[in-house]
């Protein structure tokens, strides 16, 4: 069985399972966020709207607020949990968008070749060398309206070139394989060959790039928020750090460390899973 083999390789990579475990913790965190807020009372514990009648400002961890409160007396644990949700949401959305664009471009370029290939790859070349973060910074500022979805969109738009290049070279080699040849002889249309025969074969690679793309999105969102171009109407870990910085709580460990560590660990988790997957996809990396 292929799946079992793959899982075995993944497991033996040792880093993969760790990543998966960390990720599981974050999934649990994201899911239990609303439950936590519901059980303890929306009035007080809502990450954005909560108003605690007793604690009015920054406070250290207590039984009432396990991670303490922010400058408005809002519960930091609730924010952290909702932040996990946001991170998953934006990470997966942006990475999926980028990988989708990248895969489409890569498939098109690789399959059709010639002038189309040349044109698309020149565009990829340009995209590859554009300094991403500075460009996102200026574009976000140019748009003016500060919405998290605009940031997600920008990250996706600027982040597909790497995938495109890899998928293209994969497609190039797949195109020459006998089964594609056979399909062509049988009179299958280009679309059918691409979607039916080539796309499934690049899927593992696509998944890998999706996994490796997510941390980048999360870190970039945090950086954008930190620079003051984020969306204050959504709780994200980057926004939590931004609140800590702009209210002078940078050196308040209860506030500084949890979001930063969460970003780091979630990124780590995806990277580790990516490593594990790479061992499956790229057999040359397996232990001899």
């Amino acid at each position, binding site marked *: 069985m292929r799946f079992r083999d793959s899982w075995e390789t993944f497991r033996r990579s*040792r*880093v993969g399972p*760790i990543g998966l475990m960390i990720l599981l913790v974050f999934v649990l965190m994201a899911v239990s966020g609303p439950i936590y807020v519901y059980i303890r009372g929306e009035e007080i514990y809502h990450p954005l709207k909560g108003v605690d009648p007793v604690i009015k400002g920054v406070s250290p961890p207590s039984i009432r607020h396990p991670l303490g409160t922010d400058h408005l007396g809002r519960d930091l644990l609730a924010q952290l949990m909702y932040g996990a949700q946001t991170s998953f949401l934006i990470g997966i959305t942006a990475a999926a968008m980028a990988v989708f664009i990248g895969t489409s471009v890569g498939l098109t370029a690789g399959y059709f070749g010639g002038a189309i290939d040349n044109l698309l790859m*020149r565009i990829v*070349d*340009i995209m*590859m*060398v*554009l*300094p*991403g*973060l*500075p*460009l996102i*910074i*200026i*574009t976000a*500022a*140019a748009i*003016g309206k500060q919405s998290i979805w605009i940031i997600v969109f920008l990250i996706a738009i600027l982040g597909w070139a*790497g995938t495109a290049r890899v998928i293209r070279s994969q497609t190039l080699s797949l195109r020459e394989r006998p089964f594609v040849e056979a399909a062509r002889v049988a009179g299958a249309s280009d679309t059918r060959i691409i979607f039916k025969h080539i796309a499934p074969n690049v899927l593992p690679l696509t998944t890998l790039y999706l996994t490796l793309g997510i*941390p980048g999105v999360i*870190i*970039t969102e*945090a*950086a954008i928020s*930190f*620079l*003051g171009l984020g969306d204050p109407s959504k709780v994200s870990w*980057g926004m939590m*750090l931004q609140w800590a910085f702009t209210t002078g709580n*940078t*050196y308040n460990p209860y506030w*500084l460390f949890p979001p*930063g560590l969460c*970003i*780091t*660990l*979630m*990124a*780590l988790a995806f*990277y*580790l899973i990516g*490593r594990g997957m790479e061992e499956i996809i*790229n057999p*040359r*990396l397996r*232990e*001899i």
Partner: protein
Amino acid sequence: MSLATYIIKRTIQIAITLFVVITILFFLFRVMPGDPTAFLLDPKMSPEAKEIIRKQFGLDKPLYVQYVLYVRNVLKGDFGTSFYYGVPVFERIKELLPNTLLLWVPAILLSYFIGINVGRRIAWKRGSKEEYIMIVLGLFFLGMPIFWFGMIMIWLFYHELGIFPAGGMMTPELWLDPSTPLWKKVADIVYHLLLPIITLSIGGFAGSMLLMRNSMLDTLREDYITTARAKGLKESVIRDKHAARNAMLPIVTAMSISLAFSAGGGVLTETIFSWPGLGREIVQAVLNYDYPLAQAAFFYISVIVLFANLVADVLYAYLDPRIKY
């Protein structure tokens, strides 16, 4: 095709890329709201006074005229006048560009130095505990938001330990003193450089480390390694002389690609460490709606990245005898 034609071809490609960059930038910033008067929201500033300022910057002309003017000026090396500083943009860039190079070049070299060395080691010790720890540790640092890490570094090394300065590029008291000899001034700048460089390198070495590892693993399967082993050569000789040298090639290509990515880290590090470079300036200029300056800063960051790319490509071609341009 000779090396010269290859370089020429690459240069043309770079020129096209830069032209695309200029065009994107121009339109981005012209549709952007705000102008030099945006921050002069002051009841003492009458509409008439604002119009005077706007005229000064040529913003009363139609868009396409502005574009043609802009491209023509850029080709002449003139990026216009900074809205914020009121000096020709190039004058600012001229001051900032060397500072940026001073920080980025050593940081990238150091991070690659660490990455390559650790990478080939852990590839060689495939499956060891060391490999495992280095991978997890490297990825941990890679996942860390660098601005967050930088703040912790400042707090630790400046505030708690008092080893490094809080940021900036020089100690004003030292530079103000006319009796300070030159070497002390140089040492002062090096001293201010260390912490940002260390931060940047720690945050980024994992990329090259993993690349090196994978590339090494690939190389180790090659026939000539087996041959070398069969010849009974010393392990370290095989590792460093045969395997590592060949494994370096893909790293050089990867380096050119990851440069664009490192620029992001550079921007954030400069901001955190108050380093007067292009990266900090681009953030500041964007927040000030100073678009001529932001454009030029972005343009020159792109130039750095592209130039580094060219160097990496040529280096690659030079290193790898198999490449026919």
